[in-house]
């Protein structure tokens, strides 16, 4: 429009303000992670002693790297499992014909309404019975599959032209072959979206690991930060901020590299 010409500087101003608001906590967190805790405690947000000492301290004195490793292991396993089981499940709902399929689909859809947070009590009892407590398994097994993932991939698989299945039937491909050679490659964008989604979901788990892990050996990073926070009575802010930055940097990198996919995938999910 014509008016925008004159408004340009104003729009940049608003954009920059908004960017500052969004980035503020990051910048402040990163900046204070470079300051000596003594200076932070005095309320000084400026210091001449800028260093990575807090990072060295965090890595040496806390199990922050172990927490990160745990989270990577848990999230990667969860992601891989969800890709496999959700795609298998979705395949069954699209390409297989069996009795009670619709009913089963509705049941699985219904589970999307049930918040995990409201089911922790019996679930805790279950994993305790299975002697899974305080192990990677306890944070992976309940999330091997997800109703949302099945639903989302089912949507994607339905976009596969029926002619492909017919052609595969003519070629004599069985279901495994069709699943592996056609369905998965065809829906790879959706698979990627699910991968990103399940990884982040697992990465952000907080309540469940908090209830089921009892040692640093298996504690994921979210609860690791909680651990650091609650152990420090004399708030060692420099080190805590450094730990937070160590945790946030990998996900930020993944986000920026994979931004393109998140955007497409999310919008697909939102508009379908």
């Amino acid at each position, binding site marked *: 429009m014509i008016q925008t010409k004159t408004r340009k500087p104003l729009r940049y101003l608003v*954009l920059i303000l908004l960017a500052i608001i969004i980035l503020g906590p990051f910048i402040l967190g990163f900046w204070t992670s470079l300051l000596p805790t003594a200076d932070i405690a005095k*309320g000084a947000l400026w210091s001449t002693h800028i260093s990575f000492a807090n990072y060295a301290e965090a890595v040496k004195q806390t199990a922050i790297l172990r927490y990160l490793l745990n989270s990577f292991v848990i999230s990667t396993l969860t992601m891989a499992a969800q890709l496999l089981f959700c795609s298998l*499940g979705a395949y069954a709902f699209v390409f297989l014909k069996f009795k009670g399929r619709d009913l089963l689909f509705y049941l699985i859809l219904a589970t999307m309404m049930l918040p995990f947070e409201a*089911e922790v009590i019996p679930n805790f009892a279950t994993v305790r019975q299975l002697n899974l407590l305080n192990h990677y398994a306890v944070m992976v097994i309940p999330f091997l599959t997800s109703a949302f993932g099945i639903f989302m991939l089912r949507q994607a698989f339905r976009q596969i032209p029926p002619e492909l299945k*017919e052609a595969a039937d003519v070629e004599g491909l069985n279901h495994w072959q069709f699943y592996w050679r056609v369905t998965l490659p065809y829906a790879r964008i959706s698979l990627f979206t699910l991968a990103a989604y399940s990884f982040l979901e697992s990465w952000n788990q907080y309540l469940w690991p908090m209830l089921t892990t009892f040692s640093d050996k298996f504690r994921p*990073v979210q609860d690791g930060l909680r651990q650091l926070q609650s152990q420090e009575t004399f708030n060692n802010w420099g080190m805590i901020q450094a730990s937070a930055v160590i945790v946030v940097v990998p996900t930020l990198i*993944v986000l920026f590299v994979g931004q393109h996919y998140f*955007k497409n995938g999310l919008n697909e999910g939102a508009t379908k």
Partner: protein
Amino acid sequence: MQQEITPASKPSLKPKTLNQANAKGFNLHVNDKWYALAFLGPSVLILGVFVFYPMLRTLYLSLFLTNNVGRPTVFIGLKNYVNLLTSSAYQASLQATAVYVIGVVAFTLILGLLLAQMAVRKLAGIQWFRTIFSATMGVSVSVAAIFWLFIFSPSIGLFDQIGTLLHLPLVQWLTTPGPAMIAVIISTVWMNLGFTFLILFGALQMVPQPLYEAAAIEGASPSYQFFHVTLPMISPTLFFTSTVTLIGAFKSFGLIDLMTAGGPNNATNLMVYQVYRDAFLNGNYGLASAESVILAVIIALFTLLQFKFLEKRVTY
């Protein structure tokens, strides 16, 4: 009027009875039950054990008193529910949850929309802003909580310092009820913004440009265009985003745990936190189960609403 849905836009919540290849192909009479077992078995097992069974079990537990090691011992019918709904503490928790959820949803949407609206117009370097606006998607709960804890911390925190500079009365953000609620809402909104921005930005980008041009020629001012073109055009996405945010807010736990632990004076004691407290701090599993059921019902209702809307949903 008639909610006629074009085939392309039909959200496929309903399974089609006759499906694609199998209906038309020559293996019409094949029953794939063994395949189905192999393909679906794992998912059904996991969902059954960790989603279906626990819901029933929670319902069951909610009707009992539990002993000091968490086993249900005395059947008391709906007594737990009665006690809860008449308890002023639980009512306060419901109220706090309502305030929190409404605050989070409202501000997340408004700010998300503002960000998206600002980022959607083409400008030199706008790509940078888009990336920045989506940055909080990469932030996990604990990191967000720690960043904001520092900002809100007394005397050394940013807000306190700014307040001191401007000679404003000091606010004990996390230790006074009202401000503590505001603080957790701000933090949650910030954490939500990246995701909300991306979704709304995508929706705005899909609004056809000629609609704005037509509106401009027809005499609509920018604000008229926003309310009478932009908002209606993205209303399905707006609805999707608000329910997702709403359900997420109902489930908020980590941020509360780290920032306020439900305090001060239970001012931020949200429903999930109350479940955690009663179960895993107080060992009152029967009562906590009843609280879980109430929480599940509320969330299920909103999810159902979302499904219903998705099904009816009109894509233009």
